[in-house]
């Protein structure tokens, strides 16, 4: 029953998106929609390692940026279509997640987070010095108009991002409800106790890091088509790292719904702020919202709602 509801829900969302990609006349719909959906993918992807397993990754920018530049590389060298770019980004991001996990996940807890911080700096420095993908000057990517079905490139990219959001949520939900999800929850609670209950903690953490890395990189892949100009600073932006962490924390990290809510809320607030106040204040708002949640609702909105619910139920 629940499964059916989820399937019907995703189909409805996809149909509305498809309809929107043909009817909306105001390009701002695509612009705001793309950002919100990209946030959903980032938030959901981050949460698989950061939320389910409890390993806080500060290097989301590295994965998103890597995805963006993988797409640029594939476009430049092979003139690959968007879906190949996305698959390539997912593959490279997954490998980076696996490698980073292998090197750092043996260390428990906070040291892992510190190690991920350095990753963004390392990768963006590499790109800055790589002329083929534009180096520090950045690169212009002129996508040809889509030949099938979609009226414009922005609507095409918007729908692609919607599809990615649906895919990542389906993956996250699948993990959460399976034995893998329970194993990750056990790791998050107590790694040694999990081991003693037969959970292969290192393998599961590597799995989570790989999936998380693949989704984060996937989120960056459609960006060149969308922005048509990319430079290392925007592709590896620190905002990604901050937002990836903020959104699940705002929504709640234990279920797939939390990151979704957080992403929609944060992108909404950001959009509202962007059109009303200067962009530097933008970041300040995100920071304040985050601090507010850490203090008032450490388990996110869902945790807050859940607490109310169980308190009401208890005798």
């Amino acid at each position, binding site marked *: 029953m629940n499964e059916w509801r989820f399937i019907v829900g995703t189909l409805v969302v996809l149909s509305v998106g498809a309809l929107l990609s043909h009817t909306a006349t105001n390009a701002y719909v695509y612009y705001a929609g793309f950002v919100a959906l990209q946030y959903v993918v980032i938030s959901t992807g981050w949460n698989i390692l950061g939320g389910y397993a409890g390993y806080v990754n500060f290097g989301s920018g590295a994965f998103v940026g890597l995805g963006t530049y993988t797409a640029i590389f594939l476009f430049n060298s092979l003139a690959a279509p968007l879906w190949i770019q996305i698959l390539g980004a997912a593959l490279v991001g997954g490998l980076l997640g696996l490698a980073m996990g292998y090197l750092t996940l043996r260390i428990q807890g906070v040291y892992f987070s510190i190690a991920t911080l350095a990753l963004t700096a390392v990768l963006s420095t590499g790109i800055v010095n790589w002329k083929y993908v534009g180096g520090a000057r950045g690169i212009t990517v002129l996508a040809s108009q889509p030949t099938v079905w979609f009226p414009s490139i922005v609507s095409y990219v918007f729908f692609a991002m919607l599809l990615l959001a649906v895919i990542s949520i389906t993956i996250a939900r699948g993990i959460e409800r399976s*034995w893998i999800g*329970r*194993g990750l*929850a*056990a790791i*998050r*609670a*107590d790694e*040694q*106790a*999990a*081991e*003693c*209950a*037969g*959970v*292969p*903690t*290192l393998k599961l953490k590597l799995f989570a890091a790989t999936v998380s890395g693949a989704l984060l990189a996937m989120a960056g892949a459609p960006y060149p088509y969308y922005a048509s100009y990319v430079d290392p600073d925007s592709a590896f932006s620190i905002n990604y790292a901050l937002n990836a962490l903020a959104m699940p924390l705002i929504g709640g990290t*234990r279920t797939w719904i939390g990151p979704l809510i957080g992403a929609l809320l944060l992108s909404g607030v950001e959009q509202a702020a962007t059109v009303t106040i200067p962009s530097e204040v933008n970041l300040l708002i995100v920071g304040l919202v985050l601090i507010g949640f850490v203090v008032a609702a450490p388990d996110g909105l869902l945790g807050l709602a859940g607490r109310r619910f*169980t308190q009401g139920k208890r005798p």
Partner: protein
Amino acid sequence: MTEPILSVRDVWKQFGTQVAVAGVNLDVGHGEKLGIIGPNGSGKTTLINCITGILRPERGTVIFEGSDISDLPAYRRARRGIARSFQIPRPFVGISVIQNIQVPLDYVEDAANGPNRAIELLALVGLESRADCPADSLTHLELRKLELARALAASPRLLIADEVMAGLSEAEIDEVLEKLFVLNDRGVTVIMIEHIMHAIMRFSKRLVCMETGQIIADGSPQDVGRDPEVRRVYFGEQASR
């Protein structure tokens, strides 16, 4: 005694310069009820951590059911049939009570599974009414019961109960002891670490006393209880509290 189920050979573990376990040898027979006593800091829990794989000793081997498991990670030892409870309950917070039980059922292949297995285990320790509660909402006693149920979920052949009865009332101690007796009757070897003397004297068929990382006495509970050295380091310490 036929081939022991567990054989600890010359295990040595130190933290910095602090020697916690100093070359312990210990054989545990199939179906045995072994009690381990000793003052705080004598190395009991460290020894258990070396047996379950949480800690790697500097030296020595651990043999379980005839094969050397010294190099196996903890989860593989759990899958081979070694289960433990922790001295301080370590529930998987953030998931429900029944999901806590589901984790070993998921990951230990030999675990007797089935749709109702988790509920049966909860019923065994009297937690079935709390099945859907979050694990962090349990009381201290309930957490100890959960700890035991989770250890049993892995269908262990060797159960190590590290102070499962600390902080429990007399009636609750009887309840837990009863469960351990039933388990032992079904063929599960039990190693019990406990400070509650009457409980461990009642349960154990064999008692071992540790002091400064070594086994200083090994024999029947009565003999070990009468041993002057044991009386000095352990009972003496208890009496002076």
